[in-house]
């Protein structure tokens, strides 16, 4: 019962979850898991601005404008956090509502006739991903497949290159900075990569799946492993398993694909939470009794 389109959807979701899980693992450990969610709101003024300048609602410029404001959001967050006057969570919660409000005001003032709603402007849906195609070497290829494929490779290379500074600065930021590992620089590159990946991925598959993929596989993997490298591998595997399982469930129950993939991720997390070999709740209880 599965067609070429079904395979495509699973592959696109899997590639995206690969890129998101690699970065998301660091975000979860750095207690910045809400960052992709914040970015999803902060990009709105970028979309409005591009519309005002070019009249376009869903173009390459839209993605660029959105990315610019995503980066602005993480830059503002990073600056506020560094002052140590407000906490990390508050810094994030202060920045993105301001940007989102700016976008809302922009729509109200200048673009009320344009019917910019977030869904049509940038938040795609993975269900329709196989239908939007582009030409690549004479072949009609789904745009999302190209985008998520490139994203997975670029993020994979980035994580390999930044492995030591990211690992050291997540674990022990002062040591990483002092030892000349440029931990802060690596951290900033991570944030910019998150903002860029989030925007590109919103466009391909929709915001909810992106936020799910950044956080849930990483959090699940953390419960199952005691080493960072293993955690990344497990997180990617959880992402692919959720994509495959969620897609199958959507076919079986004839319902929303992003919804079932998100739910499948949640179920995998709960299973790990209960049954993980060392950290699982049931495992601990059994050990406490025995």
């Amino acid at each position, binding site marked *: 019962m599965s067609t070429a389109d079904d395979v495509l959807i699973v592959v696109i979701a899997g590639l995206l979850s690969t890129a998101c899980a690699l970065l998301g693992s660091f975000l979860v450990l750095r207690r910045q898991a809400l960052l992709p969610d914040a970015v999803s709101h902060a990009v709105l003024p970028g979309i409005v601005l591009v519309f005002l300048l070019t009249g376009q609602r869903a173009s390459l410029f839209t993605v660029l404008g959105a990315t610019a404001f995503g980066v602005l959001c993480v830059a503002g967050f990073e600056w506020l956090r560094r002052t140590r006057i407000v906490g990390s969570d508050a810094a994030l919660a202060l920045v993105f509502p301001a940007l989102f409000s700016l976008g809302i005001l922009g729509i109200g003032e200048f673009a009320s006739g344009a019917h910019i709603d977030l869904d049509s402007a940038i938040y795609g849906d993975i269900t329709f991903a196989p239908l939007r195609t582009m030409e690549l070497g004479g072949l009609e290829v789904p745009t999302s497949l190209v985008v998520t494929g490139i994203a997975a490779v670029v993020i994979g290379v980035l994580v390999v290159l930044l*492995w*030591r500074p990211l690992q*050291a600065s997540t*674990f022990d930021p*002062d040591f990483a900075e002092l030892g*000349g590992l*440029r931990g802060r620089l690596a951290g900033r590159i991570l944030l910019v990569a998150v903002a860029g990946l989030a925007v590109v991925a919103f466009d391909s598959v929709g915001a909810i799946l992106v936020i799910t993929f950044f956080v849930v596989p990483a959090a699940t993997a*953390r419960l199952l492993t005691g*080493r*960072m490298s293993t955690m990344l591998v497990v997180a990617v595997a959880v992402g692919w398993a959720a994509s495959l399982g969620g897609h199958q469930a959507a076919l079986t129950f004839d319902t929303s694909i992003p919804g079932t993939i998100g739910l499948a991720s949640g179920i995998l997390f709960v299973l790990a939470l209960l049954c993980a070999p060392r950290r699982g709740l049931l495992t601990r209880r059994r050990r406490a009794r025995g």
Partner: protein
Amino acid sequence: MTGVVVDERRPPALALRGVSASYGGRAVLEDVDLDIPGGRLSAVVGPNGAGKSTLVKAALGLVPAVRGEVRLLGEPLRRIRSRVAYVPQQDTVARDFPITAVQVVEMGRYPHRGWLRRLTRHDDELVAAAMAQVGVEALADQPIDELSGGQRQRVFLARALAQQADLVILDEPFTAVDARTESALLEVLTGLCERGRSVVAVHHDLRTVRDRFDHAALLAGRVVAAGPPREVLTAGNLERAYGLGLLVERT
């Protein structure tokens, strides 16, 4: 005290001139001049809020908005980064980070190998030797979050040893550490000084400072006294530091 013969021509481990620093928007250190001698086991002591941690962090460039000049082993920080090892306060380390003890110690080689160069067999040997020296070789593959406070602190000291640094700076290394571990770690640090390395520890237990350290700097937002511990930790100086400390806390 180690009783080592100190080469007076040796540059000071830390030399601060006119250093001011703030932390979280609050001025903590004002115009501090201080020399901490090289090749010795030195303590930075003082009441809570006296600026002990801020002093070492400012010296290491970890606290922004510093005014004044700092030299480590006679050099500006940027020229000797890999020669300075830092053991941070335990609460600045991400406890739930998935990493094993041996991987933490391997980090001590990162400052020499940078982002991408592979660790060599020589690096592996230094890592193994450092772990053996503090008695954690059996814990190598344990995740760090499953270790006790004392075991964890031994692992962090092993990281500093593996780095082969000439200056080791520790921030409150003995909090949440059992007495036996504290004594063992102090022995390792004394051994480092006997081999010409310099050790500076932020510390709050005045008795160990008196018994085991070569040098003490007593802080209270400024330097109250610095020199041999018995001369520094007098009743009069302590009164000045800890009395003043209370005033600083209130403002």
